[in-house]
């Protein structure tokens, strides 16, 4: 891309964002406050809750929940996915369950988790985990299964032991696929986080949204949503970088 084209792109993006902000601001004057708060008030509310420490506390609470669930999903999903790809009978035995759970909207399981585990941090982390783990598991299994048999043969020809086959072939080959799963998990985990905070014991940014809604504090509600949006965009971007970083050779692999 030439520098001129890049310039006009930047200008378009900035104009688009400014126009969005203007529409947000103006729309408030045609509706009641209980319905819609202008951007200026939303930002004001955001600044207020940041000053009082509420925002930081709630955001940290949410983030802690999110990271716990996501980390657990990565630590379980990726190794287990590799294992499933390598151990055929285990895969055949479990793949239907995995497909079923992957296809199930996880929100549907929340009442069940509530009755099983009650309120607290653990059931909420479990919800985030369940939202995040299946894309990782699924992509890792599919990735590891797509490994070219020639490469495994080469490893055998060079007298590779099983653990060396994992270290030198299986894991590096599967990593980009697992990263695709992790990128999807980053997005789904965020949904899980908000859902858990809504339907289990209210906490974090989810609680801020609920409270805003119950108190007709639309500006507070929108402020919390804005934080989640920014978080989501940032995390998605991070996920894409992560994926690209580990997939430089993919697509060239003939």
């Amino acid at each position, binding site marked *: 891309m030439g520098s001129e084209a890049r310039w006009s792109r930047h200008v378009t993006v900035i104009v688009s964002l400014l126009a969005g902000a203007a529409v947000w601001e103006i729309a408030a004057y045609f509706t009641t406050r209980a319905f819609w708060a202008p951007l200026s008030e939303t930002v004001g509310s955001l600044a207020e809750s940041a000053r009082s420490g509420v925002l930081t506390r709630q955001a940290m609470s949410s983030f802690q929940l999110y990271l716990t669930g996501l980390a657990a999903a990565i630590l379980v999903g990726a190794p287990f996915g590799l294992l499933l790809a390598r151990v055929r009978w285990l895969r055949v035995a479990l793949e239907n369950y995995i497909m079923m759970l992957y296809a199930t909207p996880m929100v549907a399981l929340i009442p069940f988790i509530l009755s099983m585990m009650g309120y607290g941090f653990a059931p909420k982390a479990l919800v985030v985990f369940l939202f995040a783990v299946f894309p990782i598991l699924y992509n890792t299994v599919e990735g590891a299964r797509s490994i070219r048999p020639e490469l495994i*043969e080469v490893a055998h020809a060079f007298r590779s032991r099983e653990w060396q086959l994992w270290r030198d072939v299986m894991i590096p080959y599967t990593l980009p696929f697992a990263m695709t799963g992790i990128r999807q998990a980053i997005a789904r985990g965020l949904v899980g986080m908000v859902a858990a905070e809504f339907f289990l014991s209210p906490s974090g940014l989810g609680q801020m949204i609920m409270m805003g809604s119950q108190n007709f504090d639309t500006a507070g509600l929108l402020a919390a949503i804005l934080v989640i949006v920014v978080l989501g965009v940032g995390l998605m971007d991070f996920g894409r970088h992560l994926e690209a970083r580990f997939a430089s050779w993919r697509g060239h692999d003939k």
Partner: protein
Amino acid sequence: MVSGAGKRFGGLEVFREISLEVGEREVLAIIGPSGCGKTTLLRCIDGLIPLTEGEIKVEGAPVVTPREGVAMVFQHFGLFPWKTVFQNVAYGLKLAGCSGAEIAEKIPNYINLVGLSGFEDYYPYQVSGGMQQRCGLARALSVEPRVLLMDEPFGAVDAQTREILQFELLRIWDMRPTTMVFVTHAIDEAVLMGDRVMVLKGRPSTVHELIEVDLPRPRDRATLSMPRFAELRERVWGTLMDDARRAEFEVKR
């Protein structure tokens, strides 16, 4: 080395009653029409797949799994796309448990030997097919094998590169001669490389003819223009094409 070897995949018998012996530092070229099982035979010799009948011995010991001292070069190169040229060449030594210092000392020699100096940090997809196979060759040589198994090593590169690589291989072999089994479907290549050429034919295939190649070594481009080379090539051609023609008729009938 190989005695009474037979291989069946389910109901399909690929070859039967193959016996051969390759002497130390001898090059045996195996040629045959596609589908005759020459690659399968090579995989059996390496110990990657088991025989259905018969026995294979390398250096006196029966082959059940890939052995130390035997290395293979693959038609599909078999390079790891996430490893650089250097890391790919170092793969065998890494598996053999060599230290980092040992690898750093030895590998450049092999990279140099196959003419890849300067490309150590490139990834396979960044270099040409010919260079990829040079890398595959260096990887096989780096474990200092006493037996080299070549599975149509130049089958996937273009004609010019193929010729260049053939003479490169001859040069390298002259520097460090090893026992070599060279599978190919190219007649010129078989005659150029082999001390003997074994022709596999039929379904299931058997050893049809074993032709002594009495061309002097070292061989190079000049070998191609020797009258004796042309004679031997004609002889292999005759044996092979006779069958190919009949096979064609069988298909048409």
